[in-house]
């Protein structure tokens, strides 16, 4: 598979001008497909139960994997951030850097990821003094990613991170179009506005209350709200959800 550098150029130009996280995520996937990747995530925090106020998370992993990840509580033992902090270099999910230190539970997690279609992954740590460390993980079911493909993922991850930080810092409550709630986030907020608890919402949507909590935390951050009720109100006012 020969790399088309112009796809990377298209992505970096889009990254500089993108005005929403959704836009940059879609552009990333479009370019990454060229190098054998079809999903990714970016995060600058790892404690999903207590996301920081300046936390940024973009999730474009297969929904079934996301569901499995949160319902299984995998974030509690996902080694990605620890390995990233230790090495500060990109590492593939099959590399010694990652595999040499895994517990059975962690190995099991990667096996489940493979079954969900994430057969190959590379995680790119991005550190900038004065900012929390971020990790961009790019995955696919193609085991034949070339060194050039890995370098491409590394370069694009850096531009992705820069764009995400820029967009998040400029997020202005008066411009709700920048928030782009995911369908799940909208659903959860709709039920919050109907007075449901996280547990009830979980039963209604057939997902765990951990997952409901996660979706609502992300919605709160996107909307700049401090409580789920405030988030629901803001979403209604900006027509992201119907009352």
């Amino acid at each position, binding site marked *: 598979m020969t*790399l088309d*550098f112009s796809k*990377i*150029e298209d992505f*970096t*130009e889009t990254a*500089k001008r993108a005005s929403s996280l959704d836009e940059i995520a879609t552009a990333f996937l479009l370019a990454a497909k060229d190098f054998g990747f079809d999903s990714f995530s970016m995060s600058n925090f790892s404690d999903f139960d207590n996301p920081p106020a300046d936390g940024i998370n973009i999730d474009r992993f297969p929904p079934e994997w996301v569901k499995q990840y949160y319902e299984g509580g995998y974030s509690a033992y996902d080694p990605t951030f620890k390995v990233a902090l230790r090495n*500060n270099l990109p590492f593939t999910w099959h590399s010694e850097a990652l595999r040499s230190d895994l517990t059975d539970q962690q190995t099991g997690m990667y096996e489940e990821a493979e079954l969900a279609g994430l057969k190959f992954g590379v995680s790119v740590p*991005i*550190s*900038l*003094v004065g*900012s929390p460390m971020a990790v961009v993980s790019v995955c696919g079911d193609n085991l034949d990613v070339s060194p*050039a493909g890995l*370098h*491409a993922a*590394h*370069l694009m991850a*850096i*531009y992705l*991170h*820069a764009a995400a*930080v820029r967009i998040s810092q400029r997020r202005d409550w008066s411009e709700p179009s920048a928030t782009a709630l995911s369908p799940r986030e909208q659903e959860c907020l709709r039920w919050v506005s109907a007075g449901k608890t996280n547990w009830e919402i979980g039963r209604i949507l057939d997902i765990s209350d951990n997952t409901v909590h996660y979706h609502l935390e992300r919605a709160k951050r996107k909307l700049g709200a401090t409580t789920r009720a405030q988030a629901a109100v803001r979403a209604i006012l900006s027509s992201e959800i119907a009352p």
Partner: protein
Amino acid sequence: MIDLVTPENRHLYSNELEQMWRQRYEVFVQKLGWDVQSENQREIDQFDGESANYLLAVDDSRDVIGATRIIQTTEPHLLSDVFAELCENAVPRGESIWELSRAYWLPKHGGYDARIKIANELMCGAVEFALLFDVTQFTIEIDIDDLPRFLSLGWDTSPLGLPKEIGGTTMVASIVNITPATLTNMRTALNVKVPVMRYMQSASAA
């Protein structure tokens, strides 16, 4: 304070340029282990000739504490003669395209903050230089680990090719678009309110 050294006033800076070549040896050869030629503990190459320009960061005692080299790409430079493999397409060359290279910061005291202060001054100086000398683009070749910081300072940067392993470092070549807005944005981001660069000319008549 940043002193601009051009071919026209270079003769006034023999002492400072010597300091720079010794410091480049200290930083690039000793500390970073770069595979570059050096002699007598000075790191100086074929691009340090008469047509090179430099920005020298100097402290109150007029000692050099950092520097960067600026070469017009119509002349031989690193990207054209040494690192062309980092470019996917033709190496960008033109009268308004200049290359920044061999940038370093070596404060006498202080750690990270002191280094960053010099780095930021040099970057402001480079943009001031660009606006004075009609530079529309800078080309740079850097360790990919330094790219996030460049992007965070708001430089409009585009990659010229995929990153490649060269001499044990993953390097990437990029091109930076400079406009007057670049200077305004940098000054705002760095809280700088006045020019950093000065140009010393010979006192004697031509």
